């Protein structure tokens, strides 16, 4: 039997995007769509929140899909099967409210497709018609298309540069969809904040209920620090316990983007130092 928190697999899905399979049986069997974990690589590591892409109660395997954006996630890409993460905490956050809404458009942008997958799956299982819109900057960055096809009634892919699928943004596709098939009962958007912001701009005009999944900076993930606070409808919420999903029409995306950028300078420094250490062979 594998050890607790053992990395069973580390596969590159696209440039800077890896899929990790981790042995964490308790979390794998308790997790629900929409929840996340916090991991820590080693003693000096930071606590990194990561959305759960999949969890298998039978095998005890937890799947995470992670984009390498800074030092911590860059270090993750070097994990080899058999190595262990020091900490995996979860499942955290409130699960997605799954109901029979009717027609649901699930929008996954970039890495956001991974957490969109279990949500689409659960929505479909609850009897909804699921139309998925998958967006990526370019073809080589698109992930999990096949997986999404298996859990959706319809899938539309688009790329910013037109290298694959439709040429355009997820909002363009959503507009066309509405024009062709009428308004869906619910839109679910997960991806970069800027994408969610523009999706909401559109759905607000059209008055379509929209849920978004937010990823503010976090520390504990249990409601203890308030670092993850977001403004929703003028109220402060702790995203780690009251979210990460919120009514998109009420979210203050500007504030979220600013808060996410707060440590950018330190993150850049840490990354530069890490790359330097890799070059001069301090890290292998």
């Amino acid at each position, binding site marked *: 039997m594998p050890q607790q928190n053992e990395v069973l697999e580390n596969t590159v899905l696209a440039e800077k995007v890896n899929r990790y399979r981790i042995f964490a049986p308790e979390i794998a069997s308790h997790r629900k769509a929409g929840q996340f974990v916090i991991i820590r690589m080693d003693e000096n590591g930071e606590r990194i929140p990561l959305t759960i892409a999949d969890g298998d109660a039978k095998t005890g395997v937890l799947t995470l899909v992670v984009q390498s954006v800074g030092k911590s996630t860059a270090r993750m890409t070097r994990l080899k099967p058999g190595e262990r993460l020091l900490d995996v905490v*979860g499942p955290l956050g409130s699960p997605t409210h799954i109901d029979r809404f009717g027609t649901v458009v699930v929008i996954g942008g970039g890495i956001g497709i991974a957490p969109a997958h279990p949500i689409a799956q659960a929505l479909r299982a609850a009897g909804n018609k699921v139309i998925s819109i998958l967006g990526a900057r370019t073809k080589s960055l698109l992930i999990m298309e096949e997986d999404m096809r298996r859990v959706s009634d319809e899938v539309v892919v688009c790329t910013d540069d037109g290298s694959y699928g439709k040429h355009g943004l997820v909002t363009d596709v959503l507009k066309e969809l509405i024009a062709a098939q009428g308004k869906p009962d619910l839109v679910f958007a997960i991806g970069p904040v800027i994408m969610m912001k523009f999706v909401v701009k559109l759905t607000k005009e059209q008055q379509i209920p929209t849920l978004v999944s937010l990823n503010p900076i976090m520390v504990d993930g249990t409601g*203890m620090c308030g*670092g993850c606070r977001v403004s929703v409808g003028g109220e402060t919420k702790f995203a780690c316990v009251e979210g990460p999903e919120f009514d998109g029409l009420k979210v203050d995306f500007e504030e979220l983007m600013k808060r996410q950028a707060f440590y950018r300078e330190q*993150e850049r*420094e840490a990354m530069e130092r890490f790359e330097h250490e890799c070059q001069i062979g301090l890290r292998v």
Partner: protein
Amino acid sequence: MSDKLDQNEIERLKGLSNKDRYQIPRQTMPEQDPHERRKNFREVPHGLPPMTAVLEANRCIRCKKPGCVQGCPVGIDIPGFVGLVAAGDFLGGIRKMKETNMLPAICGRVCPQEEQCEKVCVTGKKGKPVAIGRLERFVADWEREQGKMETPLVGKPSGKSVGVVGCGPAGLTVAIDLRRAGHAVTIYEALHAPGGVLMYGIPEFRLPKKIVAAEVDVVSRMGVEIRYDYVVGKLETVDDLLKKHDAIFLGTGAGLPWFMGIPGENLCGVYSANEYLTRSNLMRAYDFPNCDTPIARSKRVAVVGGGNVAMDSARTAVRLGAEEVYLVYRRSETEMPARIEEIHHAKEEGIIFKILHNPVRYIGDDKGRVKQVECVRMELGEPDASGRRRPIVVKGSEFLIDVDTVVVAIGNGPNPLVPRTTRGLDVDPKKGTVMTDLNTMRTSKKGVFAGGDIAIGAATVILAMGHGRKAARSINHYLETGVWDIKYLPGEEPKTEQPEAKGQ
């Protein structure tokens, strides 16, 4: 004074009369120089040298009816352990201490002795009280530095098992006492480290983490299983745990940070004290980039509040390199809830006290980062419900302070995660505390006990430990008899019937 024990001196001290003892001045602990310590996270006081401890212990006159013991929330036999220190028997002293208090190195450092045992010590009536806290710290440090911390005896297996939620002082204490009674104990802790506030909140310079680790290590050696990264209410609920254990103790603390709800509180650079301290202590952000967790690199910091948490935050900011640190507090210094020692240390370290001030809004720059705090001046009016004079805004007194970081340290409420996910657990609707009968530490849910900050709101380490001890007695009684509905533990009935004590 030398590190060696001077037996002749010990003999001489033995012969002193009470009158002579009153003449000995209260001994002080040497401390790191304020200028020096502004730049490091090392502990501030160095502790008493052995012969200084012996001398201090000889100030105690061994009262027949010692007030100090009454003043101690866990009833440590103070004259007993102090007497052993006075005789140079440090091993005896620590053993006596540990009959009632298993975490003395921690309590000796963070307990508000000036409000408890030392407040009622008779020598304090004429001069200064015996430095009980310093002696407590001394015996604990002495034992640890000898490198042989004793593991208390574990009772013979009872066949029962108890689940403890939260690894703070309340949870640790209950776990120790339950192991002594022979029950199997598992602690479920949400974070990746033990100690609760001792580890994530109270800074290194006041309570070194290796000391917390050493005291927790004893708990593990007693055979208590600690499951880290285990968020009860998310992974499994209390109801699930009740299927695995015969009883559950909730010691989840008061970890929910309050904000004031004023404009600009979500600007970047505005932290809760919990976040600020957790980044610095638990995640060791002061060692960035060797440690991965970042923290603001501040020049000018405003800390809002007047308690220990505020002092800890302000003193942390200084050590992280801030040039100016303001402590903004809406009442006057006499009302500050922080320990006098901490206020004194904070002032020595150059923290600028803005007492009778209150923030009304934060102003940000175009990147959404805080750049100014608008404050008003306050004056004191009539006493309020807490008995302290109510602060009132002085009209037209608004002014701005330039800051790049704000730490909000106005208090914490109980974390609602466990209460919300447990069926049949009554919660105080106003305070969010778990309703707990303080005579028995029992909650409204059969088999579930609670203590520490989750039961009474943010309080102290020693009260949490006192609750833990009482809860262990109550759990033992429950596991032996199966009887849930009792008002008092056997032998603890009051002499005259009192109104039932509820979570106050």
